[in-house]
């Protein structure tokens, strides 16, 4: 099956890629959207002082 990759997806905040699979007729058989990135705010914010959160979590998205 033919695969068309859109990598990276652009003009938005964040990281992503799209894989489009085409069947023998050239029609779209399936499409997958993937996020190739993880920084781990869910983990590294744990245990840090709550009053510092306004200075850490804005860096989840700066756009």
């Amino acid at each position, binding site marked *: 099956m033919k695969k068309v990759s859109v990598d990276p997806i*652009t*003009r938005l905040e964040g990281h992503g890629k799209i894989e489009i699979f085409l069947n023998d007729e050239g029609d779209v*058989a*399936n499409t997958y959207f993937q996020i190739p990135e*993880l920084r781990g705010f869910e*983990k590294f914010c744990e245990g840090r002082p709550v*009053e510092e959160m306004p200075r850490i979590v*804005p*860096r989840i998205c*700066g756009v």
Partner: protein
Amino acid sequence: MAKLKLALYWAGACGGCDVAVLDVNEKILDVANLADIVFWPIALDFKYHHVEAMPDKSIDVCLYNGCVRSTEQEHIAKLLRKKSKVMVAFGSCACFGGIPALANFSTRAEIMERAYIEAPSNENPNKTLPQIKLKVDEGELTLPELYDDVLTLAQVVPVEYFVPGCPPTVELILKVVNALATNSLPPPGAVIASEKTLCDECDRKKEDKKITKIYRTHEIIPDPQKCLLEQGLLCMGSATRGGCGSLCVKVNIPCRGCFGPPAGVADQGAKLVSAVASIYDASSKEDIEKMVKEVVDPAGTFYRFGMSSSMLKRKHLQRK
């Protein structure tokens, strides 16, 4: 003069550095007069294969923001290095690891577990984790591999210049643009910011007084004229490079060190620990123990933006 070719990339980043470039407002037109942008995912629709097709060293300057913590980010760093004459670590993540480098206090497994399985907003009964390779009915899907360590750009490729800041200020970005326009870049290896510490540039009054208690930021309203550290707030100014325009201390909140260590300082956190130890009025073991208790998150405060480039680098890993 022929137009320069400029590339901008975000690796492990939030996009704030890219937006900072746009924050130069109408000066972006000067950038457009000076340079053709050949790659900039946030704003322009170029793909990785376009970069791969470029001749080596055909990009004049690459501003690379974000940390390096996956096979993809390292691959793109190496690709852009090969294609670029000048590589700039742009922003605190690329320079020092930045906020994402706080992940160096955990392991990859702990981060994956928390983000994809434990987090209360998840519904993942089969405890599925991202796979580097996954067979699907139509073929195979791949994802980059996440590293245990968050790295700086210079830890994976040679870097000519460092522009610190979370994000770099408009003034610094214009300094870089002007240096490019006039072909007057400093010698390679330079950090494009101040050579002084933030403390040296701070207008607040210092009285060389000792402190008897370290306060958390919500516990007091500091005097806006006086040194924050001398009021008992952990301010990173004496261990941090200046050049930011004193943005945080001007609004009465202590510096967290996003410009990294000043010239001649190897470890920002150790420098601040030394400053706190010398200002704290401790004459007994009990005083010292009290001081240590009052610093609620020493690692996350002293190494808020600089874990990757610090001497610690990360929490010790228990290798099997």
